[in-house]
């Protein structure tokens, strides 16, 4: 169903088209689509969420933690290499 897959329209929400008008394949897909929340569709999850605005303190805290973790990580790697020797 990739690429040229059929367009699935949310007819079940609109109720504009009689069920008898639907082809079996369309009816099957309409039934399927009812089980997904709208924001679960790939087309929806493909849209990025808006960027959060971090306060200066939060940004500084994150950077401090990141620098600290990198330094400690380097210490562990140094110890690892030292033990090899």
């Amino acid at each position: 169903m990739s690429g040229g897959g059929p367009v699935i329209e949310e007819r079940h929400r609109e109720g504009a088209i009689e069920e008898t008008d639907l082809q079996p394949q369309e009816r099957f897909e309409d039934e399927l689509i009812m089980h997904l929340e709208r924001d679960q569709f790939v087309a929806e999850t493909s849209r990025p969420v808006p960027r959060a605005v971090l306060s200066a303190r939060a940004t500084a805290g994150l950077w401090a933690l990141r620098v600290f973790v990198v330094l400690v990580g380097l210490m562990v790697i140094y110890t690892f290499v030292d033990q090899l020797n």
Partner: protein
Amino acid sequence: MSTPEATVSPLRGQPLLTDEDVARSHDRSRVHHARHHRRRWHLLWLLVGPGILAMLGENDGPSMIAYAADGAQYGLGFFVPLIPILFAMAYVCQEMCMRVGAVTHRGYGELVLQRYGRVWGWFGAGDLTLTNLVTLIAEFVAIRVGLAYFHLGSGVAVALGLALVAFTLSGGRYWRWERIVLGLALFNGLFLVAAVLVKPHVSAVVGSLDFTPFPGGSVNTLLLLLASTIGATVTPWMIFFQQSASADKGMTPRDIEHGRYDTAVGATLAAVFGLGALIAGAALLTHGGSGIQGFAPGAGFPEALRRVAGSAVGTVFALGLIEAGAVAILTISASTAYAAGECVGAAHSFNRSPRNAAVFYAANIGVALLAAVVILIPGAPLLSIALNANVLATVLLPVSLVLLVMLANDKGLMGAWANRRSTNAIGIAVIAFVGICGAAYGIDSFLLATHLIGA
């Protein structure tokens, strides 16, 4: 992020349905059916998965060796109460991952990248790639140790690991992948069987619940034990994996209660099986346990257990190591694949075909292949890599945890499902504990290695 299939209908402004949507809809229809007909156990069966896999996946080769080594060198005291406490900490972190995944339908990597910027997203992905690669090498080493008990070599370990990755990826469905790995993961219970077979004294196990006897040795040894045991219960890959898998499974806020059951069952099983490895290892305590190297050339622990407790214990422990390594290769490779797809903005789902999610499948197989190549290099320091895998994960974990707590508190994303104060208090305590233990070991070891302080 765009995919070839996820476009908009020019006629009605409605999204096209992708193969990923169709596969997920099938799974969700069964959930709706079970819920509608009040089939509680069937509903639970349908919704369990990511939590158990994250927890039992973390009961991996290095972790089980670490628990057994703790038992062999120090006995049961201190570790019997510590392991359940650490898995309770893991539950707090993993529950947040599941909840964020179910509410936002997005993975950890993509949310951090989109919400807090590319720098933090790529830092997280970098941490994950490094720790995953090191850990995957350790998983192949664990499989090799288990197979060595049956007189099989590194080539078989590599072939087995890679064949499993290829086989589980072949279906193009999340559900299929999850059920196969779940089936394999249940064999983590072999460590409990090994514990029963060594016939431990129940009174000794119960008596160790008061944290005594406290492990002896230097401060650095104690810090190493703490850091490696923490790294055996909570790691960056678990965060990436459970959030992405919860989204890939199609979980929604209505499923959060079952997601909590899933995570709690996983944590309980992992703690019990981890204790099994500890108790089995403790059988070596009075038989020169301190001299046993779990990853030493040859069959290591299984062979030592065979000599002390009989061939049945050795065989079960060896099979357990093979299982632990194999399941972890599958889950850790999957977490790498999710992160790769999320960070480069490519399709990232087991519900996609390899043609439609090339980055996801290539990363999944590629990282396992890279780790496999390393263990085939003659003279590679596999023992040191394996022993340091958990420690490195512990050291790099705090940043991932802080960003996870930030996401779980983000009311713009989570709405009514954002963290409560009590969850935040526990989460912050976990971050502080992990950060202090990891940093203390890293700094102390560095000062010892550079001779700035004496041993």
